[in-house]
């Protein structure tokens, strides 16, 4: 059942992406309304996908890469919905839809059979640890998207050739501010994820930190975003530089995650 819901979600996000592109070309607010509604429909089915998979597997759905991509995409859409509600930033949907779709398309190519969880991982800590990590990363995904939007808008303003997306995107100030907000939500979540992970490692394996690749990478990610936060708070990093930094950091984050999953190194390999 979860697979059917999954494909309906993929189709809905695909549609939302096409409609969003139509909006970006035609600048018609009615089209944007349709796109945003399509995302909502997709999100409903996405939620059904997650819930039904959880029920069918009898455990939280993040045991293989397929589940991980789907769950991550779902969290990104949740944060998008929260931001849209809070800031009335309608155009954001046009960027989130393709992003969520790409994640799901990737998930659709990965093995989808339900595999059991290693006994050592059956604990209440696991959903908390993974949930925090994903939520934090979903906020970083937003800083990535805002970074892209910032660079596009900045390019229009610097090159003095206004047109196209210039009319649709919000001001540089708002994009920078939102990127910063998402960073300030994402960073504490990532920190908590690392702490809960360490506590849990101590509980299961008797050691807080074992320098296995996933841990090492999460620490590197943490330092990357700590540096960005520090730069923003004290040195006055902002705008273009912060945007580029957010984009690169997120690419490193995603790249490292995939590499480690694919090669299944260390304790986190039990997921495979």
């Amino acid at each position, binding site marked *: 059942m979860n697979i059917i819901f999954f494909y309906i979600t993929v189709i809905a996000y695909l549609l939302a992406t096409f409609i969003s592109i139509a909006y970006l070309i*035609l600048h018609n607010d009615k089209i944007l309304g349709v796109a945003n509604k399509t995302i909502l429909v997709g999100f409903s089915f996405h939620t059904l996908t997650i819930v039904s998979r959880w029920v069918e597997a009898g455990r939280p759905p993040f045991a293989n890469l397929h589940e991980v991509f789907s769950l991550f995409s779902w969290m990104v859409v949740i944060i998008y919905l929260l931001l849209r509600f809070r800031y009335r930033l309608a155009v954001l949907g046009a960027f989130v839809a393709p992003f969520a779709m790409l994640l799901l398309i990737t998930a659709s190519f990965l093995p989808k059979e339900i595999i059991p969880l290693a006994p050592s991982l059956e604990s209440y800590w696991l959903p908390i640890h993974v949930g925090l990590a994903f939520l934090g990363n979903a906020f970083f995904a937003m800083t990535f998207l805002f970074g892209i939007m910032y660079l596009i808008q900045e390019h229009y303003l610097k090159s*003095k050739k206004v047109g196209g997306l210039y009319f649709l995107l919000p*001001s540089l100030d708002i994009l920078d501010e939102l990127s910063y907000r998402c960073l300030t939500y994402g960073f504490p979540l990532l920190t908590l994820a690392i702490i809960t992970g360490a506590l849990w490692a101590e509980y299961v394996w008797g050691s807080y930190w074992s320098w296995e690749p996933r841990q090492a990478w999460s620490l590197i990610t943490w330092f990357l975003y700590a540096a960005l936060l520090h730069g923003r708070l004290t040195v*006055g990093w902002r*705008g273009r530089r912060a945007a580029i930094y957010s984009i690169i950091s997120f690419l490193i984050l995603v790249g490292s995650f995939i590499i480690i999953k694919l090669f299944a190194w260390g304790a986190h390999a039990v997921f495979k």
Partner: protein
Amino acid sequence: MNIITVGLSHKTAPVEIREKLSFPSQTIGEPLNRLCTSYGINEGVIVSTCNRVEVFAVTRDIEKGLWQVKKFLSDYHNIPLEELDEHLYSYTAEDAVKHLFRVCAGLDSMVIGEPQILGQAKDAYGYALQHKTAGIIMNKLFHKAFSVAKRIRTETKIGSSAVSISYAAVELAKKIFGTLQGRSVMLIGAGEMAELAARHLLSNGVQEILIANRTYEKAIEVAKSFNGTPIMFREFTHYLKKVDIIVASTAAPRFIIHPEQIEEVIKERKNRPMFFIDISVPRNIDPLINNIDNIYLYNVDDLQGVVEANLKERVKEAKEAEAIIHEELGNFHRWVKSLDVVPTIVALKKKLEQTRKSELEKGLSGLNGLQEKDIQAIDAMTKAIVNKIAHDPVTHLKKEANKVEGDFYIEATRRLFDLDKEEEELVKKIEES
């Protein structure tokens, strides 16, 4: 009844012709009255602006009506019709309505979507009301045109992007800073254009304004008019780090702001963005500063480029506006049709019959001991009374309606018997749906 329009605009006539044909608002009463006493013209409104002169009129016979209006324009201004005719366009019936809708929405304007024309059309209609040359059809037509224009303004973005250089500067500032609330601006040199830009910035929320000028007295004078702070010209560089927006318009023949200087300033500002507007020719600000992060520099040509891009965007929005007009046109057409004599007679008869029935019911309920036969007799009697009373008005209405002043009869009937109440409710319902 038919709506017609005859006129010319910037699209069909050069300014020499337009100015000859214009009607000054102070003396508009006379031409309005002359127009409406022309044979076959029942109602009239004259819209006269610097870009267009248009006569909207109501007539029974389209061909004769058009000719009358043309003749009126030619006679009134003493221009031979042959000379005028090549510049004149005319629309009739639904096309005339559509034309007015487009004009009021700014779709026919030189700068698409500009809002002034709506105010001018409102004035023109006001004059016609004042001089009693606008009747039931013109009233409805213009009110409808105003509401369509308003709808277009709210539902499309036709008027939202700036089409003048000083507004374009404000719009760019908003794209950089988000809100202009609490931002500060510095004028270096004071000129008409700089002051205009400053005025727009202030009305959009900019709080603080500094004015530097070579002659300090001039700075003081300008500062007074903006409630700003004058500063010494040679000291303006010290204040750069305190302001977000800089408008330069001095007569200096060389650059007075350099990249090295700005690199220092932006560091001190912890990279908070700055927007430089250079409206001086020759330029006052080294264009290289645009390469510095968080610095945005626009000169006059750049702003002109923005204006042109905005105009293109308005053309896009205009397509949506045309769709709205098409939709509203259908509603209006339905109403105009109802003004013919037949629907008026039907409405009149319906109203009389309704009144008779309700009064009959009331009357009968107060009477006791009547037999079925009596009730039928009373019913037949009231019917006969109503028909007798209605007979003459209906006959005359039918006869008069085909004459030139038929509309007055129809209008009078509709007003005397309050027939438009239902009609208006119907139109409202159509509009709402």
